[in-house]
């Protein structure tokens, strides 16, 4: 009886619209404090510098190659750090939960991840420059120990796409750890034992039992990592001086800064970002639906 009361597919005595009351507070809050203040984005993207209605800003998005390149670059960096961050973050989370490291290490990692997840912008850029920049101490260390001058003898350059990705990982790894650790906790020991009893090897256990269970959570975390990197601005600006023209820096150039620009174009670009996030979300939802089927 209780079961049918919970199953949404069975017609309930409560009518449809009342179900939406449960999420009403959330929507109200979102409207009051997120959607309404951000309306300027929408209105502004259709306004030009004189305050008149125009489609010119939106059109410019598709016409200017530099803007399309900026989107593509942002997507690439977000995808790279989402995947890279996802993989290594997962391994880290694994090591302190299921992987059997001592409990204090887990506490240390979790709390450290909390702090590191927000360590970004100028302090992060400075920390990495002081480590791997031309005068960084690891650069000097490598030169002294191995005789290799990183900047002159190899292709390595901190102020590049991969350098920026490496820096982004500093807040991507912790984010993955924080989301996945509770999920990994949910891997019951009994499953492992049952699988072993049935003769499964470790690989088979992971492939057939653990990963399918974890996949929805992993996907959810990765979309979060993607969004996190997609919206990042300060770190890239501090590390590459705006040279790597990711879309957030382009938006900042139009909306902020000491030089008069075209805010309408900036708002249009931000709307474009919303669209990209919506598309990513749809892709993620589709993957989510497929992965959840395995759990039923």
């Amino acid at each position, binding site marked *: 009886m209780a079961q049918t009361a919970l199953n949404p597919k069975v017609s309930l005595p409560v009518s449809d619209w009342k179900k939406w009351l449960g999420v009403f507070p959330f929507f109200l809050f979102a409207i009051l404090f997120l959607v309404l203040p951000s309306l300027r984005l929408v209105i502004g993207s259709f306004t030009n510098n004189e305050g008149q209605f125009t489609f010119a800003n939106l059109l410019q998005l598709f016409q200017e190659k*530099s803007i399309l*390149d900026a989107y593509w*670059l942002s997507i*690439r*960096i977000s995808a*790279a750090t989402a995947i890279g961050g996802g993989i290594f973050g997962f391994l880290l989370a694994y090591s302190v939960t299921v992987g059997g490291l001592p409990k204090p290490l887990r506490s240390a990692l979790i709390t450290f991840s909390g702090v590191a997840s927000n360590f970004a912008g*100028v302090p992060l850029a*400075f920390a990495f*420059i*002081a480590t791997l*920049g*031309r*005068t*960084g101490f690891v650069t000097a260390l490598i030169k002294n120990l191995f005789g290799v001058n990183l*900047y002159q003898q190899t292709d390595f*350059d901190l*102020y*590049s*796409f*991969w350098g920026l990705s490496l820096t982004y990982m500093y807040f991507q790894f912790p984010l993955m750890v924080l989301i996945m650790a509770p999920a990994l906790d949910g891997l019951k020991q009994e499953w492992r034992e049952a699988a072993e009893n049935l003769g499964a090897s470790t690989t088979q256990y992971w492939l057939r039992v653990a990963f399918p269970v974890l996949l929805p959570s992993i996907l959810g975390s990765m979309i979060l990592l993607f969004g996190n990197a997609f919206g990042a601005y300060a770190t890239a*600006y*501090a*590390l*590459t*001086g*705006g*040279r*790597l*023209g990711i879309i957030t820096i382009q938006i*900042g*150039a139009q*909306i*902020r*800064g*000491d*030089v*008069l*620009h075209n805010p309408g174009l900036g708002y249009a670009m931000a709307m474009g970002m919303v669209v990209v996030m919506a598309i990513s979300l749809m892709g993620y939802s589709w993957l989510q639906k497929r992965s959840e089927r395995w759990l039923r």
Partner: protein
Amino acid sequence: MRTKNFAYYLIALFVIAATLLSACGGAAATEAPAAATEAPAMTEAPVAATEAPAVDPMADLIAAAQAEGMLSTIALPHDWCNYGEAIETFKAKYGLEVNELNPDAGSGDEVEAIKANKDNTGPQAPDVIDVGFAFGDSSKAEGLIQPYKVATWDSIPDDAKDAEGYWYGDYYGVLSFLVNTDVQPDVPQDWADLLDPKYNGQVALSGDPRTSNQAIQTVFASALANGGSLDDAQAGLDFFAEMNTAGNLVPLIANNGLVATGETAVRITWDYNALAAVDSFEGNPKAEVVVPATGRFAGVYVQAISAYAPHPNAAKLWMEFLYSDEGQTIWMKGYCHPIREADMRERGVIPADLLAKLPDVSGAVFPTLDQLNAAKELIVANWDSTVGADVQAAP
């Protein structure tokens, strides 16, 4: 029923917490206003200006400002032109609270803040702004600022102020090189020196040339020394293109921390920033400031009062303070050249030791608004293509 009680409980909890919070925050923010009004000791000594301020209007202004009790400023870092001391002196002198909004804001943010706060009488609305030269006219055109002529109005040079009093230049600086002499003992003396191979991977700008006033004017300045002129900034772009090809240009936005580590051993910035940096280093690292021999470029910033200022009298008092000899001298202590410098030198009111500390910037050129705008358009549009800061191709 139980949910209703729960809801009331939550609201009560929230209100209590918020009040606790404001008590905590309030303790940090309020400053007890001084009891006594200070008599017009504000405009110092005999002023040579023709409009000698009568004692009465000033007392009225002070009283009105104190009735308002607060001034909201924005984008004033404490070690930029010694604003820290200016604010503290102002607070102590008139007993007003100064609410400092975002010290990191750029000129565009300041203007945006005025627009967003049009209906706001709270402390988030900036009363006064200190913005780049080009923003004076544009803010006036958008109706965001109100006119006010300070007592010492006449001693402000004509080309640095709006005739109707909407905006007025406050200080200027000249672009210079800040060099970390521990890392690079060979100090460049002029723009051309920066192309020398010994500065490989050492020279950096203080901003992004597509958005930062300082960086754009750096490129503009280099044009002067490279065969260009105030009307043609292309030579500046070519100069930096050459520097980039030579590998001397570091693609970082330089700050003092990076100068100290040696990553950007030569930083091109305003002379007042550079000199303040040397002071803050306190010998570690050793650093020198050089104003280039040719291509001396002056950048002016302007002050204005917001048309929507919730505390207009406090704002006017702040302006009177800044443009008095006392205020201008405080700026000078921060190595900025105050706009009334010529007048003050004539009257001999600048302390000798301060004069000795200021670098020689004779021959510095002041571009007009039109020249600035033209150069800005050129540089912003062509930086990427000319200087060729390539995006790393990623797989």
